[in-house]
């Protein structure tokens, strides 16, 4: 079973859902929901719970959208949790402490994410550092900057216009969900229909071969890491808006959920395959899983263990998929 027939990457939206390898995980998602409904009935299936789950996993979903692009190029970025916090903190600082308007503050936060992502990309392409090592270092750098800016204190007293991003509703749908869906559609179209999107897949499939075919590999990689920084920033700002507080300690460990979501969604860590639909479904599966553990009254400590196990399982299955392919 080939994970990534071009048909999946390009055809009509609904056609691609049914024909694609993502169909498998969509089935799994529905099965999980079914099991939960049978187990706890209304507690799961109620509108309030479902909305809550959806809203909750939106933040991870947005992260997964960015991470998906990086993983398709064959790279990885474990600094997204820190960029998440840094951008949130900068947006909040700008609005609450420097007196700037909400749109400007949010823009600054997103810019910070873009720049930091670009920095990651530059280290990988110009200094030729392995992405894992680069983002391991930049993870601490971003976190450190966030601590320094805030002095360790949370930033409160944020205006309603800002909090709307996390708490508000657009057409009766929570804003974070709307954000995720819009970003998912835009990035998905970008990856599947544009020349740059094709280049991103090509780089992941065969970097040297792409270069020889005229793809500006380094430039595109820097762009991808930068876009990932933007996604992390959007998610971080939306979360800060939801909580009404900008915290330098936010987002710790979120990179793992993002990576797990992308891998569950069908992307290969060696690059060249994967898609936004899969990443979002992967994030949904993680979200439903977390919700299930809570509803089933599983101790919070066990939740950690279960999530971690799922991550290992997801990557192990990915490797198996690859071995099968090689035969």
């Amino acid at each position, binding site marked *: 079973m080939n994970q990534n027939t071009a048909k999946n990457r390009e055809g009509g939206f609904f056609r691609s859902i049914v024909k694609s390898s993502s169909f498998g995980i969509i089935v799994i998602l529905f099965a999980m929901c079914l099991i939960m409904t049978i187990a706890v009935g209304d507690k799961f299936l109620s509108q309030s719970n479902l909305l809550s789950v959806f809203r909750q996993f939106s933040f991870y979903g947005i992260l997964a959208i960015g991470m998906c692009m990086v993983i398709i190029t064959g790279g990885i970025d474990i600094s997204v949790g820190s960029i998440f916090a840094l951008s949130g903190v900068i947006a909040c600082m700008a609005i609450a402490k420097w007196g700037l308007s909400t749109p400007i503050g949010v823009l600054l936060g997103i810019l910070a994410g873009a720049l930091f992502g670009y920095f990651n990309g530059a280290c990988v392409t110009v200094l030729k550092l392995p992405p894992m090592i680069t983002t391991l270092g930049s993870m601490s750098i971003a976190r450190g900057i966030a601590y320094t800016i805030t002095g360790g204190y949370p930033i409160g007293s944020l205006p309603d216009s800002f909090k709307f991003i996390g708490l508000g509703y657009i057409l009766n749908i929570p804003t974070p969900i709307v954000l995720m869906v819009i970003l998912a559609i835009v990035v998905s179209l970008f990856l599947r229909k544009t020349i740059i999107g094709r280049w991103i897949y090509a780089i992941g499939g065969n970097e040297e071969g792409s270069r020889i*075919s005229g793809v500006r590999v380094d430039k595109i990689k820097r762009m991808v890491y930068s876009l990932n920084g933007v996604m992390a920033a959007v998610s971080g700002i939306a979360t800060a808006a939801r909580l009404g507080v900008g915290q330098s300690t936010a987002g710790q460990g979120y990179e793992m959920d993002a990576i797990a979501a992308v891998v569950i969604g069908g992307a290969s860590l060696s690059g060249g395959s994967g898609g936004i639909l899969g990443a979002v479904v992967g994030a949904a599966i993680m979200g439903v899983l977390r919700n299930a553990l809570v509803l089933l009254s599983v101790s919070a400590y066990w939740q950690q263990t279960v999530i971690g196990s799922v991550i290992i399982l997801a990557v192990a299955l990915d490797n198996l998929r690859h071995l099968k392919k090689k035969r």
Partner: protein
Amino acid sequence: MTEELLSMQDINKSFPGVKALDHVSLSLLRGEVHGLIGENGAGKSTLMKILSGVYQKDSGQIVWHGKPLEIHNTKEATAAGISIIYQELNLMPNLSIQENVFLGRERSKGKFLVDFKKTQEEALKYMDMVGLKVPPSTLVKDLSIAQRQMVEVAKALSTNAQLIVMDEPTSSLTDRETEILMNVIRSLRASGVTIVFISHRLNELFEISDRITVLRDGSCIGTVVTKECTEDQLIQMMVGRELNDIYPKSKVEIGGPVLKVEHLNSGSVIRDVSFEVRSGEILGFAGLVGAGRSEVMRAVFGIDPYDSGEIVVDGKKLGRHEPIDAIRAGIGFVPEDRKLMGLILDMTVRENTTLPCLREEMHGGVISRTREKEITETYVRQLSIKTPGIEQHVVNLSGGNQQKVVIAKWLATHPKVLILDEPTRGIDVGAKKEIHALMSELTKSGVAIIMISSELPEVLGMSDRIVVMHGGRNCGELTRAEATQEKIMSIILNAGN
């Protein structure tokens, strides 16, 4: 000493699609230096790898010291007394000389502890035999290539080898170092060790060997006594084949120069290379593996950086450039390794074919599926690419068809110059002919073609002019009319002196 040490009889070995050895026989005497020569692909390495246990023969016999011997792996070969020193050397640079010599066969105290004293003593003994006068604790990475070679010889001696095969031992040595190696070989011969000396350097073979065996196209042509034969005779044996393949060559008007390369230099790999190719012309690049031909083309195309030189396409100079710049200037490059560098295996025929021309053919950065289909189907038809459809993943196509996809993708960029690096390597005869016919067709429309090939008949059959490279240099040019295989080989072999 005329006792026969080894007799390989009727050895056959095939790999998928290729008969590497066809009833090859080789006889080695004790205490002789036996030269082994042949072109690329003649079967020398395969034969030696069977002897050293790396490959298994399909059929045939090996008789060692008068008794039949089955060699199943390298350990058995070493235990029998057969040792092989590869051209690339098989040492661990971060370990010391003595550790390398006894790697895998460490001298130990009991079961667990390494006996350093013994290791050092014995290492010194063998190092002395080869004239290596540095401390045995010296790390291999701090040694020169010549010294490393000596470590390999010492290693072979420490296994009590009675037969040592040396594969191109002098290719990286200076004249002085070569002399030292020759002396070591002479002393080994005097002590009864047999040496198989694989080399392209005829002067060395004439200097050191007692007999020489010539392989060609997987067959053994003959064994001669060195003193009784001439260089011309050897070349004739290496190369003499009938040119019965007819190459499709059309009469084409050759225009002005499209690509000019002047004084290209890159480290020691490309040395002052200059050449030009004209519109409608096929310029063949002949030479042995490692001559630097691919390196030159990679530099011209912008894949690898170079130190100095000028590359001019259609009058416009290319500065330090990347492949995208070369493509824009009108150059296309079909690389040697189509799987690693020519294609994106996981992608479809369509995606591979359109990759370099997307920017030119699509509007506003968006890919039009219809246009993609159009372009791909045009070339699938034109090149007769056998595929169930353009959505087939190229990894599933045969070698010949994969190569056609690579060519298709470059044709879609409408190049002025097309560089082909070993375009028909590993491809069946039918597809080969099709690619040759395609090359001829292209020249009719004014495309200039550069073709690197290690198959002399192909070079002679297709080229209008031939550049012969060796050791990173352009050693000579021949026109179609005057070129023969002997002349090309002669240029190569003389350049090595």
